């Protein structure tokens, strides 16, 4: 559905995006991650035909971004980073305007307007001037305009920035619901969201791809040992030793003691899930199991490791500018 081939954007002196290639299959949500200034926005602007790449190309929906730019744009819904909107228009007026510009036939516009208002949960603000909306509502107008022409591909640059926790959950669920008949590239700094809704991630740093795989593969391939954390209310003195005897546990250590609870961390052999055995043991020994959690390698670890590794080998530091 989206095929990026050797894309690069070079400015005099530095590469904003340097030879990146990846694919997104139909119906997939791709998490597009990277530190600020890594080249995410530049890549998205190239994919949405706002800028041209210095080298390479991309195909979206089997159309080339350079040769069939108009056709590509007809099928893309884009939410830019800072949600630029016309402040002197009402939400309804703005959405209708964008629908018309993106070629929605006049007859279908009322129906698409309703769908977009619903997508952004904006029904009660339809007549409000955009300039009077709060940041969260502006973000929702941004989401609504991205889907107003019912595009097959959505490119969302930080859709949950500025939203309150509840709106964030709603937005996450909404994006998830879109994945049935849309292909989505999602850039965000909120890693739990990525873990929850993305099937694959691409991590870029300094314009280069440093990791790309499905989340599961990334988590298992990263060689760090999976960990299980236990919180017990009244463990006996030999609890650590007993825990170590569980099949699959390579190390067990008592990490922290407070007045009424102790924390244990079990390091496990790769691919082993020891949670059930640990729980049974705790119950048998009557240690008062308060909490049991698999730590694994979180996306955060992967993100930090791959982006700092790149920094380590990345040569001189050049600040990446994302301005026009």
């Amino acid at each position, binding site marked *: 559905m989206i095929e990026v081939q050797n894309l690069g954007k070079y400015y005099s002196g530095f590469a904003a995006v340097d030879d990146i290639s990846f694919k997104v299959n139909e119906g997939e949500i791709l998490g597009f991650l990277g530190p600020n200034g890594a080249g995410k926005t530049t890549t998205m602007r190239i994919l949405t035909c706002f800028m041209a790449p210095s080298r390479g190309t991309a195909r979206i929906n089997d159309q080339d971004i350079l040769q069939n730019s108009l056709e590509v744009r007809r099928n893309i819904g884009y939410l830019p980073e800072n949600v630029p*909107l016309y402040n002197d228009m009402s939400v309804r007026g703005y959405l209708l305007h964008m629908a018309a510009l993106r070629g929605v036939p006049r007859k279908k516009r009322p129906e698409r307007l309703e769908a977009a208002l619903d997508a952004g949960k904006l029904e009660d603000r339809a007549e409000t001037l955009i300039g009077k909306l709060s940041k969260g509502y502006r973000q929702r107008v941004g989401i609504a305009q991205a889907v107003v022409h019912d595009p097959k591909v959505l490119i969302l640059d930080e859709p949950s920035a500025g939203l309150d926790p509840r709106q964030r959950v709603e937005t996450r669920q909404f994006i998830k619901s879109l994945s049935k008949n849309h292909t989505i590239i999602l850039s965000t700094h909120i890693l739990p969201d990525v873990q929850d809704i993305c099937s694959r991630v691409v991590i870029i740093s300094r314009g280069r791809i440093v990791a790309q795989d499905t989340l599961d593969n990334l988590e298992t391939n990263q060689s760090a040992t999976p960990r299980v954390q236990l919180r017990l209310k009244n463990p006996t003195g030999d609890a650590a030793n007993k825990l170590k005897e569980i099949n699959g546990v390579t190390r067990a250590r008592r990490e922290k003691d407070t007045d009424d609870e102790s924390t244990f961390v079990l390091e496990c052999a790769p691919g082993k899930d020891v949670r059930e055995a640990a729980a049974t043991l705790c119950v048998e020994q009557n240690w008062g199991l308060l909490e049991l959690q698999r730590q694994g390698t979180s996306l955060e670890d992967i993100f930090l490791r791959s982006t700092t590794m790149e920094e380590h080998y990345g040569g001189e530091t050049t600040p990446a500018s994302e301005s026009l």
Partner: protein
Amino acid sequence: MNSITQLFSKELRSYFTSWLAYVLLAGWLFLTGYIFVLLIVSSTIMPNFNLAPLFSNMMVFILFITPLVTMRLLSEEKSEGTIEMLFTSPLTEWQVTLGKFLGALLFMLVLVACTLYVPFFTFRYGSVDSGPVWGSYLSLICVCGASVAFGIFCSSLTESQVVAGFLTFGGLLGSWILNWVSQVAPDNKWASLLSEISLYSHFQGMLGGAVDTKDLIFFLTFIFFFLYATVRVLESRKWR
């Protein structure tokens, strides 16, 4: 074509949703009305009632109004970032430029049309030759088109509306001043070259009612040139 109409009606609407349109309209109507009244009063003293001074003054007012009308067209899109929304929609640079040009031009033509009461009363109650009047209106339309095209071009160059406004004003003022040179030194060939590229010498030619294709082609070329330049500036975002 649909997209152009959509863009153009959005522009036109946004003039009338702000104060700008009403302030400009009020000022414009006051000034043109004031000059019209002066002309009527002076006609009791001087023979040969003539509307030409009114139209010359309207042209000068257009010089002041155009920057206010065109300065935000593209520079605001740039500074607010909304240009990203425009060009990630399926629109070509020509569609955007033409949409904005037509929106601003139509607004200027609304101003010009508001003075149509002047020929109405003069034809009805006076005896004025109609040729020069319609010639003047045609030349006002041409000057509006050319000024707006130049204004859009200036607006595409910068993110700052103030800079865009000053560039437009400076450019149009310069074009007016060029015209003076030929009046000071009518025989100098450099002076006549400079006055040939001035908008206002072509305007004055038509003011007398003599519509020359040479002047019309000058205006059309001028408009096309600056619209084309705007399109190229807009396209430059891709490779810069």
